């Protein structure tokens, strides 16, 4: 139920040969089915049951999976409703729209499969597949820049994923040496059950490979070099999917393994690595934000920063993990919304340079307004969700006895804060750039984005109990 709709969407797009708009509409409706299925899974978990399906518990949706399935289906839905091919003047040809529908759906399918698979081997296969399906969409408009971006993406991404495969093999090796070969040996549940018997050094080595490997896909420094290019050159809907949720799925894979390592050797090892890479990511991202001249790259670096924050959060004990997961959800909502808005800005102004975009509030009042509010949300201002999760993260940090670390992170976030507000100011005010039509194009795409914004507001004011339960279950799974 969860996995079917994107697959169907892809098939439909493949079959309908000159692209027709109804494909986009069917796609959009199908994505709602996925979202519904994710919500159903959530309700199962609230009742205390962990849904599984398939032979030998092939698919398994515990709290961590469900949170991510929710994120993926929301963003995939947004991409389906707002992506190329829904209206006649969105700047994409029929062939490009068709390609988008096919591969975006395949990407959504592989992401959903990755987060619900019980077998870490299949999880790996699915994540590699997400790289492949999304890579083909980056150069939707073939330009020198997009070709360069897609090459870096596929090369660095594939190398990273290969290293993650190495980690998977090492984990398997550890298990096999303890318990002998079994068909189900790569099942996460099986690995968790025998975690305490795993040889510490081997599983630690495996985790290093896993963190470096999947971390490459998640945008952790120093493996992040592909990210600003890929996320800025990709079409808006794809950037939203990539920044919003693909990074999260890669982090999901790391967290799955983290659970095994923590059960085996305690949290000290993973904590150290998380903090190192997390702080490095936040640092590089914050300083890069200062010199940004391209608003899509700005958003991309912001994603790197938030990924780093999530990692640091994961290293701060149970409170930190709670905060980190909440932050993941908040960031998905905020960043995907921002990229869609950026797409609208790009479509109107024809440039991604901050310097050449001015008077946004006059030219597109609704888009500009949402964009501004979105930036404020992304840098962590109240009353939005990201403020709450960052606050919770700092609280966890002080509770875990790491005041200096929190101080450093706070300082870096302040650098990012100031930079992004500066860039925003340059874009919002001033005379509208010459030759740009004034007035909103079509209003209705703003509706789903407005819903995202409302969700962020809600999360900024309160934490609904079902969400709280879900997040608590995740903390238990990760075992801190």
């Amino acid at each position, binding site marked *: 139920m969860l996995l079917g709709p994107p697959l169907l969407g892809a098939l439909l797009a493949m079959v309908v040969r000159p692209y027709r708009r109804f494909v986009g509409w069917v796609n959009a409706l199908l994505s709602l089915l996925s979202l519904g299925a994710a919500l159903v899974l959530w309700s199962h978990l609230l009742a205390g049951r962990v849904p599984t399906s398939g032979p030998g518990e092939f698919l398994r949706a515990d709290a961590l999976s469900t949170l991510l399935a929710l994120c993926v289906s929301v963003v995939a839905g947004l991409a389906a409703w707002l992506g190329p091919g829904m209206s006649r003047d969105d700047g994409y040809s029929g062939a490009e729209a068709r390609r988008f529908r096919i591969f975006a759906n395949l990407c959504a399918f592989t992401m959903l499969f990755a987060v619900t698979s019980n077998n870490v081997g299949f999880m790996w296969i699915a994540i590699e*597949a997400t790289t492949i399906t999304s890579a*083909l969409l980056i150069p939707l408009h073939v330009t020198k820049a997009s*070709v360069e971006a897609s090459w870096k993406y596929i090369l660095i991404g594939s*190398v990273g994923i290969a290293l993650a495969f190495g980690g998977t093999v090492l984990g398997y090796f550890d298990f096999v040496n303890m318990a002998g070969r079994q068909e189900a040996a790569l099942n996460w549940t099986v690995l968790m059950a025998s975690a305490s018997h795993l040889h510490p050094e081997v599983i630690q080595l495996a985790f290093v490979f896993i963190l470096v490997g999947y971390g490459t896909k998640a945008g952790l420094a120093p493996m992040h070099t592909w990210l600003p290019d890929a996320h800025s050159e990709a079409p808006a809907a794809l950037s939203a999917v990539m920044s919003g949720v693909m990074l999260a799925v890669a982090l999901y894979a790391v967290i799955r393994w983290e659970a095994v390592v923590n059960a085996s050797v305690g949290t000290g090892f993973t904590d150290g690595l998380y903090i190192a890479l997390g702080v490095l990511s936040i640092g590089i991202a914050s300083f890069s934000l200062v010199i940004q001249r391209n608003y899509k790259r700005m958003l991309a670096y912001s994603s790197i920063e938030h990924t780093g924050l999530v990692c640091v959060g994961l290293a701060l004990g149970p409170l930190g993990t709670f905060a980190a997961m909440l932050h993941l959800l908040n960031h998905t909502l905020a960043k995907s919304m921002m990229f869609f808005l950026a797409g609208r800005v790009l479509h109107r102004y024809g440039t991604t340079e901050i310097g050449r975009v001015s008077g946004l509030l006059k030219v597109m009042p609704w888009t500009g307004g949402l964009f501004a509010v979105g930036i404020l949300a992304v840098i962590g201002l109240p009353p939005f969700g990201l403020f709450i999760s960052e606050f919770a993260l700092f609280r966890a940090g002080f509770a875990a006895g790491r005041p200096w670390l929190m101080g450093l992170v706070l300082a870096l976030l302040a650098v990012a804060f100031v930079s992004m507000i500066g860039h925003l100011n340059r874009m919002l005010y001033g005379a509208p750039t010459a030759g740009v039509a004034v007035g909103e194009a079509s209003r209705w795409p703003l509706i789903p984005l407005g819903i995202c914004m409302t969700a962020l507001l809600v999360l900024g004011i309160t934490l609904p109990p079902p969400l709280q339960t879900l997040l608590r279950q995740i903390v238990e799974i990760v075992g801190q």
Partner: protein
Amino acid sequence: MDSVFSQLSVLGSSLVLIFGLILLWRRGVTAYISAFTWQSVVLSGVTVVVAYFGNDPELYWVAVGLLLLKGLVIPRLLRRMERRFPAERELEPYVNTATSLVVSGLLVLFGYAVTRPLVALSQLPTRAGMPLAMGLVLVSLFVVISRKKALTQVVGFLMLENGLALLAVLGTYGIPLIVELGVFLDVLMGFLVMQIFIYQIHETFESIDVEQLNRLRH
């Protein structure tokens, strides 16, 4: 019997690593493709040896798959690409040949250090080859980072996959077959996408020197 097995696996692994080092020693893409092809053939051979001595019939299928995919299909596609683009030699990589070889020697030693817990833990007669597999992984990583031609980077990536496959075969007599099939599929797909992109690079940039890909900074 065990020691023959052991020696054969170490011999095979050494050959696999040596073919990998050719990427650092020679400069022409043709040599790289041949090295990769032979490396894949030897890798299938090692898999067959493990299948025979380790009594694991599934591995025969894996060996066949390896041979077909990495010994035939991918090299054929690589050679076709290489013919399309004039035989540009890998001139002036970021790190010169002598330094590269020294670095790769260090990397292999590092591989030995890193795999010490693995070798200590394992009971399998094939365990002695694991450091060599890890060495290949590290050397291939170095190739990808330090080389400028897109085709070389692809071959480096493929050798990285070979190194990991070797590690899996030596360490655990392979991974479950169904996962292995998925891995093959992924590698093939990934390679095809890379191929598409190399053609696109060539069309837009008139060369496949990745140093040209420097428009996007900061």
